[in-house]
């Protein structure tokens, strides 16, 4: 068991009072497993992903990683977790605009002290980014940008990759290519993958599929 | 602020006959006022009378140049007292100011001076006679033969005067009534001067000869409060007779007129108010003002019915408190020359 979540609850404040987003989620992720999180807009799937990734905190419930409770970690602890253990890919704005592609790919790995020149070259090659290494993010296409994000997430050799609609901004063909590359590489590294998507097609390519409806697993 | 205008305001008595200035219409403030039946004491009375508010030595002349061109000149010294005291130094309340002018057919030159009486810059001594302000003077061993000098930025003159007749006393033996309410002044003239000398004009010196008329007048309250200006004539006819006449314009449209008929031997006849009739005939545009520069003057009692025409209708005295003063020619029942002064046409 890589990750275990128990009775996760989360509300957001609005002018009309607290709005519950997650209403008690129980979830577990095994090492190397691929899991799709689907659901309508506002069903809480992104929030769940953020909480699993240590980007946000729950109101109640517990999360444990490899048997260790990580629910109570402070800012620093959660930052270390993100840096060392997870690879995170968002739909957009993944990259640091002031750094080159190469620096972006290496960024998290170097933060975590795990950068290896060979590993980075391999990733760039696998994702077809070798030509782009000295460019800046704004000079890349959307598909290329997401490939950089994938490379960066995998460069740290994470135990768990968290992806939030990673191909949501791409056209269908590109999305298909990028997804395929991502799945191959994740499989190569042996990391588990949790991906938020609203596309049933994509969800079907994952090992397991969970559907959220109004903050609860259906 | 314009100091000059204020000086003039305070000195108003002189010119202010026309302006109806409040200062004079009211009180005499400890100053002596003229009384009927005066007894003059010469030469002392040619000098200043500091216990009267206002006084002047006022000379006008009609002259001819070598080419027959006509000229006029004016030399006036005014004395105006802030208080009926003599005083010495800067604090003397006796203030003097002078006006001088030369008129030609097409030019009119004016200059103006101010001074305090206590420091020697201006004053009048009766014997030997000298009236002066700055470099301007009117002086002589006696009142009958005098030298006269004045300068301005564009003109100067130096002339000698020689009296050919006696002093003439206006009104009732020198007591000249100025309104129906009884305002009056002491007033006498020397209208019989022969004049010769030199005018210096922008084009150079001009030798001239002619006649001059000197007025002496002092008072403390010469104007009534309903009088707004005056028209004053001094005319010398070729038959030897002379006429002094004035009318004070009153705010109700009526006039207070008076005058003196002077026989060739100097014998004066005081004119009654209805003896002297002056009527404007034609107006001239003088710097935007309508000024009557042609007059019909009638004295039925002496069969006078003449027209006076200004030598130069633009004889405007552009001094602190401006007025019109210039030479005229006389035609009609009598011919001759003279001077016209008009105030209150501002």
């Amino acid at each position, binding site marked *: 068991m890589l990750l275990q979540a128990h009775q996760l609850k989360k509300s957001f404040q609005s002018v009309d009072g607290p709005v519950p987003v997650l209403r008690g989620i129980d979830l577990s992720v095994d090492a190397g497993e691929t899991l799709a999180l689907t659901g309508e807009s506002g069903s809480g799937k992104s929030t769940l992903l953020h909480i699993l990734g240590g980007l946000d905190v729950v109101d109640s419930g517990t999360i444990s990683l490899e048997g260790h409770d990580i629910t109570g970690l402070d800012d620093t602890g959660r930052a270390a977790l993100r840096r060392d253990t997870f690879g*995170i890919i968002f739909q957009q704005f993944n990259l640091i605009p002031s750094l080159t592609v190469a620096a972006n790919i290496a960024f998290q790995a170097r933060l975590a002290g795990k950068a290896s020149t060979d590993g980075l070259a391999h990733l760039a090659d696998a994702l077809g980014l070798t030509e782009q290494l000295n460019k800046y993010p704004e000079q890349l296409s959307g598909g290329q940008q997401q490939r950089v994000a994938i490379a960066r997430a995998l460069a740290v050799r994470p135990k768990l990759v968290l992806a939030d609609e990673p191909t949501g901004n791409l056209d269908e063909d590109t999305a298909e290519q990028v997804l395929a590359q991502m799945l191959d590489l994740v499989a190569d590294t042996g990391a588990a993958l949790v991906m938020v998507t609203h596309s049933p097609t994509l969800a079907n390519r994952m090992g397991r599929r969970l559907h959220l409806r109004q903050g609860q697993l259906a | 602020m314009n100091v000059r205008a204020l000086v003039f305001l305070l000195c108003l008595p002189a010119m202010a006959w026309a302006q109806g200035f409040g200062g004079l219409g009211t009180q005499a403030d400890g100053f002596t006022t003229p009384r009927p039946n005066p007894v003059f004491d010469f030469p002392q009375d040619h000098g200043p009378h500091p216990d009267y508010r206002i006084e002047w030595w006022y000379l006008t002349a009609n002259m001819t140049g070598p080419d027959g061109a006509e000229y006029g000149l004016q030399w006036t010294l005014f004395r105006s007292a802030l208080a009926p005291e003599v005083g010495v130094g800067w604090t003397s309340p006796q203030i003097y100011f002078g006006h001088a002018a030369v008129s030609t057919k097409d030019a009119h030159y004016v200059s103006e001076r101010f001074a305090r009486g206590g420091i020697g810059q201006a004053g009048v001594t009766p014997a030997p006679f000298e009236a002066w302000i700055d470099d301007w003077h009117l002086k002589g061993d006696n009142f009958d033969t005098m030298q006269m000098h004045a300068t301005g930025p564009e003109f100067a003159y130096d002339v000698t005067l020689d009296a050919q007749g006696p002093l003439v006393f206006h009104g009732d033996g020198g007591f000249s009534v100025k309104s129906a309410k009884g305002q009056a002044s002491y007033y006498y003239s020397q209208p019989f001067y022969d004049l010769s000398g030199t005018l210096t004009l922008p084009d150079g010196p001009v030798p001239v000869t002619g006649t001059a008329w000197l007025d002496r007048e002092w008072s403390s309250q010469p104007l009534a409060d309903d009088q707004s200006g005056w028209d004053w004539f001094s005319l010398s006819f070729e038959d030897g007779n002379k006429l002094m006449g004035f009318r004070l314009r009153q705010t109700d449209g009526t006039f207070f007129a008076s005058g003196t008929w002077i026989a060739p031997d100097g014998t004066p006849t005081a004119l009654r108010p209805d003896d002297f009739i002056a009527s404007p005939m034609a107006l001239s545009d003088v710097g935007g003002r309508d000024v009557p520069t042609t007059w019909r003057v009638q004295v039925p009692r002496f069969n006078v019915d003449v027209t006076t025409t200004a030598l130069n209708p633009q004889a405007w005295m552009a001094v602190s408190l401006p007025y019109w003063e210039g030479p005229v020619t006389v035609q009609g029942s009598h011919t001759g020359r003279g001077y016209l002064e008009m105030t209150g046409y501002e």
Partner: protein
Amino acid sequence: MTAAGFHALWSHWRRNPLQLFTLVAGLALATALWSGVQAVNAEARASYGAAAATLGEGQFDQLLPAQSDTIAQADYIALRRAGWQVGPVVDGRLDADGTQIRILGIDPLTAPNGFDAVGEGQPVDLVDFLSKPTVFANADTADLLKGLGVRVIEDAGVASGMAITDVSVAQDVLSLPGQLSRLVIANQQPLGVPPLADVVPNLTRVAAQSGTDVARLTDSFHLNLTAFGLLSFAVGIFIVHGTIGLAFEQRRSMVRTLRALGMPLRRVMVLMGVELIVLALIGGGVGVVMGYLIAAALLPDVAATLKGLYGADVSGTLQLRPSWWISGLLISVAGTGVAAIGSLMQVARMPLLASARPQAWLTASSARRILHVAISGLLLAVAVALGVWGKGLVLGFVMLGALLIGAALALPLILDVALRLGQARARHVIWEWFWADTRQQLPGLSLALMALLLAMAANVGVSTMVSSFRLTFVGFLDQRLASELYVTAQTPAQSEALQAFLKPQVRVILPVLSVQTDLAGLPTDLYGARIDSTHRDNWAFLEARSDAWDSVDTGRGIIINEQLARRAGLWVGDDVSLGGSRILPVVGIYGDYGNPIGQAIVQEDLFNALHPNQIPTRFGLRTDTPDSVRKALIDDFGLPEANIIDQAGIKAFSLSIFERTFTVTGALNVLTLAVAGFAIFMSLLTLASMRVPQLAPAWALGLTRRKLGQLELTRAAILAVLTATAAIPLGLALAWVLLAVVNVEAFGWKLPMYVFPAAYAKLCGFALLAAIVAALWPALRLARTPPTDLLKVFANER
């Protein structure tokens, strides 16, 4: 449509109140400093105007006594009787409760310019004035005159420290019966006046323009203030420019939408223009009020400065003049226009279907960068060219302007190079990112940093000038104030007895003999000196003949101060006329710092021959036993203690005058620096909200918010230090221009330049502190940003 459009445009400001505040505050600050300085200048000029109108200086020639101090009233009457149109003036100083008041007596009847100086535009009752002793003075001075026993009328038009009255009253209170100080000559004179020399051979005619024309003398000082005002205005406009640029950039999509919905471009432009004018008027209005407060606060010091440097009397109270309101609002609108023109043109040229680029403001196009560098190079070249070939005060200021703006435009390039170096040397990934990110932020911060550069350079430059001046001045005092004691006789009559008493007590008595006169057509204090080893040992000449003191001592030479030398174009070897046929060669030029007017020194006997009625009342005493001499003077001679001052006392007094003189400069310095600090603060605050998308990925990848906040603070500090480092050489260049070019033109003396590293380090410390204080709040906000806000960056619904 117009109302709807306005509403849409205005909603931007409603949603971005901070931007609105920045814009209005920037305008207000710019306008405040500008109009404050203008107000101070206007007030000072009004004071000179009042004084000049009264004195007839500048308009009329004057007659001054050639040899004595006064003109006999008889000479005045003689001139008038000769036809000369001259007006008398009695001019002297009266001690009222320890304050010197200048009493000016005129004759309203003959003064060529009449009585225009008093009455505040209203007629003065002249009968009243002539009938009753009256003085006119402004409110400050009126109180001091109460004891005079004459009527005092308050008149704001009369210069401070001055009282205008009738000749008679002036002669009376100054005890000058029958005497006049000078005569003012009317411009128009009657025909045929005799030559002046025939009437009054003992008087000298002085041409109008060479009189003590305070306004001309102080022009340089006001130009100085104006330059400061302009600098502050420019700094403020930098803020405004930045804000408007950002706001317009952020509203591109709104403009596009409005146009797509059918509003003509012209209408959009007009609406945006009107909106800016309204904002400019609001900011300008606030600025004028602030400017008034600044001016009111500065004016007393300005008055002190002008008094100290030029001897000009300026009223210490401010009058509210409508012209400031107008000019303040106009400059605000004009400044906004300059700041907005680029943005408005961009909107005008924007294609209807252009995409919104919310990040575009943060990146400068390389074309613009090249243009800036080109302009910068050009301006710096102009500055250097002027430094080599330029002459005169205005060119000096042009050179300053070119130097400052050129350097400011070059700053982004310089900083970029420095940051690139930092980046190349960075080993750790966080620092690599930090340098890269700082470089990317540079365009957004560069305006604020330019403002900081200008403010700091001005600070370095002016403080270097003032401190150099101070060092030179102190050295000069040490050198000049060599006598151990300075004593003043109570009356001229006591002079002889005092000298006789002192003779056996001290080594040397050095009488101080002086008159105010004119040399080479310039107002000059002429001193008669008893040449002694004190002079020979202590005085350092700027340039002199080797036998200078011998020449002076034998009455065959004159030495003059630097001010007189420069203003009159005299140098060693030139001849100077002392009136009449007395002509002496200049044998030496000496530095005379802090003195507003010319000074010249001749030998004592020669002085007495020229000015026979001068009796010395002040003496410098050389003695080895100053304490016992002082005691003897007090106990045995009966001289009041106040009439004896020792060397230390007089030095302290001189220095205190000096210190007051530069308070204004100091105050303006601080204000300019404060505006620059505000610019940095506002820029960082604005950037902070826009930088969330840039920072969110770093945070997501494992940097804590706290760490990000620390990095932001570090970034501000590093930029400030880099800017400060660039500011110091620029400031030193500025100081050189001030000392070697502007000073000579403005004050008449050239100063050696000293460098004050400790002061610059302190200033850098201040700049660092200011930057950190400015960055603190944005950094704290960043450290406390809720994760939700950061996550929104990545959210699909964004």
